[in-house]
């Protein structure tokens, strides 16, 4: 187990380092002078030159790369060129929106999908099953942004229950902040729930065919109790794996939903930073996302290995 852990952590570090190299190289090769972007079309050349020096852009790339990676190891992610603020602070501000959003979406997604999946498995081939499968199919097929726009049109424009987007900030209170996150979380959760419901259904059906379930049924336990006590816990293993994967996907993939709802989350920060040529922010956020995805995958692997040692031995 220890060797497995060490191997997994080494892979993680190597991936992170490769990510910094690739991201830096790609951004370095894109044309565009950040100082010029900041000062605009009427800028005097000497002001642009002064700003370049102030931003450290006049230094050669190996120096800037080493400075960036070295800083990150000490928790210093550099200073945003456009916002003139430490990137770590910017990212923390944005994570304070994206993480609760992803968490809320995950809870909604699981809260909808697991009961629906179990319900469908319990009545395989009947109308209820068919309805859940149809919901699943639709949820997978409908693009998230389109669904988000429909939600805004219905709940904000037509009914006036919610703001059409934006975020009042956590300092405005937990209630208003959560309210601002609810519609985007639903928009994020439904496509995920559609996938998850189908997986839950399949997992439950597989478990239903197991010997011990037949035994339980033969013992005369009511179907409902069999589903809850014997099927659900075992079916949850594949469901949890998918949930773990979905979390990293939600964090990284919230870009579209954050833009439709003008939520100032991490995805939108990345989107804006690319537009403004704020290289240090783009670099740091991309590396952060890459590390998060790799780390979550590693955690899922480690958790699975701890639960069931067989794959670890064969791997």
């Amino acid at each position, binding site marked *: 187990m220890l060797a497995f852990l060490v191997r997994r952590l080494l892979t993680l570090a190597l991936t992170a380092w490769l990510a910094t190299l690739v991201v830096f190289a790609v951004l370095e090769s*894109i044309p565009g002078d950040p100082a010029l972007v900041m000062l605009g079309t009427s800028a005097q050349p*000497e002001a642009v030159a002064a700003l370049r020096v102030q931003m450290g852009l006049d230094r050669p790339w190996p120096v800037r790369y080493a400075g960036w990676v070295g800083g990150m190891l000490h928790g210093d992610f550099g200073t945003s060129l456009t916002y003139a603020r430490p990137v770590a602070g910017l990212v923390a501000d944005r994570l304070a929106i994206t993480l609760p959003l992803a968490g809320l979406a995950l809870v909604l997604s699981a809260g909808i999908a697991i009961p629906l999946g179990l319900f469908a498995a319990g009545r395989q081939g009947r109308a209820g099953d068919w309805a859940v499968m149809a919901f699943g199919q639709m949820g997978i097929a409908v693009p998230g942004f389109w669904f988000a726009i429909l939600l805004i049109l219905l709940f904000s*424009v037509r009914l006036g229950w919610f703001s*059409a987007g934006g*975020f009042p900030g956590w300092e405005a209170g937990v209630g208003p902040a959560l*309210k601002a996150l609810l519609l985007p979380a639903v928009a994020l959760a439904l496509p995920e729930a559609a996938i998850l419901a189908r997986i839950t259904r399949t997992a439950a059906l597989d478990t239903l065919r197991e010997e011990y379930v037949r035994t339980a049924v033969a013992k005369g336990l009511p179907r409902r109790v069999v589903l809850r006590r014997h099927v659900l816990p075992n079916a949850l293993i594949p469901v949890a794996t998918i949930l773990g994967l979905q979390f990293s996907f939600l964090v990284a993939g919230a870009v579209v939903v954050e833009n439709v709802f003008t939520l100032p989350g991490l995805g939108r920060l990345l989107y804006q930073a690319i537009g403004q040529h704020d290289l240090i922010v783009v670099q740091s956020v991309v590396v952060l996302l890459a590390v998060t995805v790799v780390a979550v995958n590693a955690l899922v692997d480690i958790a699975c290995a701890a639960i069931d040692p067989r794959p670890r031995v064969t791997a």
Partner: protein
Amino acid sequence: MPNRQRRTALAITMGAVLGLAGALAAGPVLAQAAPRTDLARTNLVVGMRLEPPHLDPTAGAAAAIDEVTYANLFEPLTRIDAEGKVVPGLAEKWEVSADGLTYTFHLRKGAKFHDGTDADSADVKFSLDRARGADSVNAQKGYFAAIAGVEAPDARTVVVTLSRPDGLFLFHMASGDAAIVAPESAGANKQTPIGTGPFKFERWVAGDRVVLVRNPDYDGPKPALERVTFRFISDPAAQVAALKAGDIDSFPQFDTYEALPQFRDDGAFTVMVGTTEGETILGTNNARKPFDDVRVRRAMAHAIDRKTLIDGVLFGNGAAIGSHFPPHRAGYVDLTGLYPYDPDKAKALLAEAGLPDGFETTLRLPPPIYARRSGELIAAMLAEVGIRVKVEPMEWAPWLEQVFKGKNYDLTLIAHTEPLDIDIYGRPDYYFNYRSERFNAVGAELDRTQNSAKRNALYGEQQRILAEDAVNGFLFMLPSATVQKSAVQGMWVNRPIQANDVTGVRWK
């Protein structure tokens, strides 16, 4: 079967989780709705397309900085009013010496910064010296280039001496770039701005909004609004939704022109269309073949149907121009009739220039929607006379780098939004690659001239020179559309400067 019923009920309950959550969350919304209809409303939510990168107008070119801070938070010595005139700012009056080289400013007596310190002549001297200093990163450093020295003989008086006459000096001192800041707070203005204006900074929710509150210690007239929130919404569909949902009270610079009719038809909203300083031009590289031939440039001018362009891009909202000058400004000369739409004339001019079969060229377009749409239409119009245009959409940073700075382009399309910026045609290294002794001679005379009638005549002469030389394709002025709730009063209709001056806004 009771089990089935129970399970069905469970599924329905789960499916309705969203509905319930929505209903629960709706409570606070309905509770908030009450003060919205209150007659004495004193808060305002202003929509903006872009978020300012920071809030220091003296350290960045982004228009969004001025759109939040100008006249609200920060005051320059002089100010631009809603009509575009220079009016008193932090200086309540001033005198100009006969030779146009000495400006004496008298500051308002009770002016204070938001941190409670006096705004005096030392702060003005600090601000001007900082802007023109060697390590200044002021985006409009050129505005301060003529200053030879700044003296502060007493706390309320500032004497600025120029090394050469500058006819636009008072105008430039009214820009956000010339805002007066204090030495002790200047360094932190990007995040926590401290100015002398009638509003002070409250908070900034990064990526979403900046909130200003009324400054109780302001020495001038108190604004009617107690709180102003600037919300940043870049997506056109989201802008429309935010207005319709009632999140936004006023959205100036609303450029989703196709949505204007639906707001005009809705009694809850008012749509105002005014002018900006944004001359939209078909930027032409005058140094490149075949554009170094004036006949080719004139042929292009004849080949562009401005009416169709304005209808197609701005849905009819916007004025045609014939030179680089806005029609609403004194000194404007109407030159739109100089090159009427005439494809045959264009073909004849091309043939005269030795290009009877036309030629191939590229048009590099920056991201704004007006540029992309205009570019496609112009490519089609030029194709009619044999000019085969390859359209190349670009992102903003590469456009600045390659087109604007590198001058590596044939044609481009952009609105020049700086006020009174006809002088860019006199800059030797500007991206049009245009040189004209005649134009520069008039420019030199403008700098020596204070008399406004004489200045306007000189501006007219400059416009004629540019139109005759057909330096660029002069297309239209970007309109300034404002969509707002009908009860909002006092927002600027025109945009003589890029600002959302809310000091005079109130609810009806």
